[in-house]
């Protein structure tokens, strides 16, 4: 008697990485935080870092990221993640210490802590989500908001004469000698998501090699506060954010040169 199963070999091609907790998240439908969490967790699991990793979570939409990453974690004050991560890393130099921060947290209130962590060449990894808006507080202008973009605190569109131009974090951090790796990637389609994952992997490898500060800026969507469908929001990333925030490598340490150029 023939059995159907005899000729079938199962090949597992996709599963939840161990470093990602088995939970529903609180993120809005269509938000790219979920994708970014998945990518970071896959990298931690694939590089065997889960048991050595310490996450420093930030304040913003990702305030509960410590629930979703199954690693040791601390919850920092708003903007202070890079300072807190510095404290963790300096007394635990053999651990893999990373922050997960949005644009309000990192590029506004936490700019000094972020810049000085890079200036010191702090051997930590920063995952930076840029969605051009304050999400958790309901859609206010961020330093990354595009010129003319309407938010609840720039209701007439961001006026660069009054509030300046968008801040380019990957470029700024890439210009600092202490930075080993600074790149910008996008998450608006599958190809770019794959490139983003490779960059996240390189950033953690930079820390593992002790090369210094590593940061991956991820262009992300916020359908809720942009008042768009998820698909419209991804198109808006492609059509409006990518031209303002060019994808690319802004600093790649010489020991990482084989990893260069996957972002464009």
């Amino acid at each position, binding site marked *: 008697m023939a059995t159907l199963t005899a000729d079938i070999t199962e090949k597992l091609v996709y599963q939840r990485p161990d470093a990602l907790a088995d939970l529903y998240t609180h993120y809005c439908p269509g938000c790219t935080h979920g994708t970014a969490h998945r990518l970071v967790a896959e990298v931690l699991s694939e590089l065997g870092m889960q048991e050595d*990793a310490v996450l420093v979570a930030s304040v913003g939409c990702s305030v509960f990221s410590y629930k979703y990453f199954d690693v*040791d*974690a*601390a919850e920092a004050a708003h903007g*202070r993640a890079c300072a*807190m*991560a510095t*404290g963790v890393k300096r007394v635990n130099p053999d*651990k893999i210490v990373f922050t997960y921060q949005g644009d309000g947290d990192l590029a506004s209130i936490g700019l*000094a802590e972020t810049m000085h962590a890079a200036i010191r060449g702090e051997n930590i990894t920063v995952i930076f989500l840029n969605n051009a808006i304050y999400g958790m507080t309901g859609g206010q202008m961020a330093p990354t908001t595009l010129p003319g973009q309407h938010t609840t605190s720039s209701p007439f569109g961001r006026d660069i004469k009054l509030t300046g131009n968008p801040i380019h974090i990957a470029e700024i951090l890439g210009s600092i000698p202490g930075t080993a790796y600074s790149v910008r990637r996008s998450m608006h389609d599958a190809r770019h998501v794959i490139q983003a994952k490779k960059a996240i992997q390189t950033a953690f490898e930079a820390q593992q090699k002790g090369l210094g500060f590593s940061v991956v800026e991820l262009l992300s969507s916020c359908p809720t506060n942009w008042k768009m469908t998820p698909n419209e929001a991804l198109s808006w990333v492609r059509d409006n954010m990518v031209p303002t925030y060019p994808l690319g490598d802004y600093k790649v340490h010489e020991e990482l040169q084989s990893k260069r150029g996957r972002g464009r």
Partner: protein
Amino acid sequence: MTKELLKGNVAIAEAAVRAGCEAYFGYPITPQTELLEHMSSRMIELGRTFLQAESEVAAINMVYGAAAAGARVMTSSSSPGISLMQEGISYIAGSEVPVVIVDVIRGGPGLGNIQPSQGDYNQVTKSAGHGDFHPIVLAPSTIQEAIDMMGLAFDLADKYRTLVFVVADGSLGQMMEPAELPPMQELRPRPTWSLTGKKDREQNLISSIYLGASLLEEFNRKLQAKLAIIEKNEVRYEAYELEDAEYVVVAFGTAARVAKTAVQTLRRQGIPVGLFRPISLWPFPEQQLTDLADNGRVKGFLVTEMNAGQMLHDVRLAVGRGLPVKFYGRMGGAIPMPEEIETQILNLINPAAQPETTPEGSNGYINR
């Protein structure tokens, strides 16, 4: 061990090193900078962590991170720097990690000056950050006491998983006196709750967020219960010449040193006066003061501080309305002379006989 001539800031730093301080993060500010400078060489020599942060805001968050990672950690600063640290201090209180902070108080408000002051009393004992908490606050009055307090501060921080302040003032930080340092202690192991990687166990989390009202109220109840235990167990004070005293001077830190000299002078004249010196400013030795007020012998209190009267209110609460509680303070970096306090004690004993006098060359004192 023998006594050496030690500068206050350096003595405090070395005492912390010997108490097993594994990491120090700080930012230069007068009059505590020698503490940071001493750490910058000693901690590196010993292979421990020293880092000069870009600001006090960053320093306290580095301290928070290192404490979360389980290291015995401290920072030091002076008044304006403590103000900047308040955000981190509240987070540290809310996540119950052990941290020691030295505040070498200077004159305020604002930029003020770099002279000795006790103007941070309310800040460190009552409003060290947003939310309901008190750090343990220890106030030395000599360099030897400051040295001995550093080991105690770290032990209390660990025992209760709480913040401990050691508050000196600019004069204690800057002056030199003979003192003896303790032997070097081993570094203690990392606590089981700390962030060391989740190998062979569940995730450890250090956080001060409790989103639901009931969850946050439950946490606060737990925190208040712990603080109540600290209030019961950790009151410290010095009673000097109080056995037969009819008048009591209440003072802490440098002001208490000066007051002690005044008490000694008046005692030689046969005047029954003593000194009550709170050593723990929080928990405040309230019951001990109440007992003094109720002992049927004491007729009045004089509180003297290098501020406009901050501890005064705690003393008045403890003493109640039955006895006079007078206040004499100097502000802006001035230290009272023993003669000023003697005059104030005599005023307390016999208000009619002694006219209120302004100390020569000073118009900065305040009576209440």
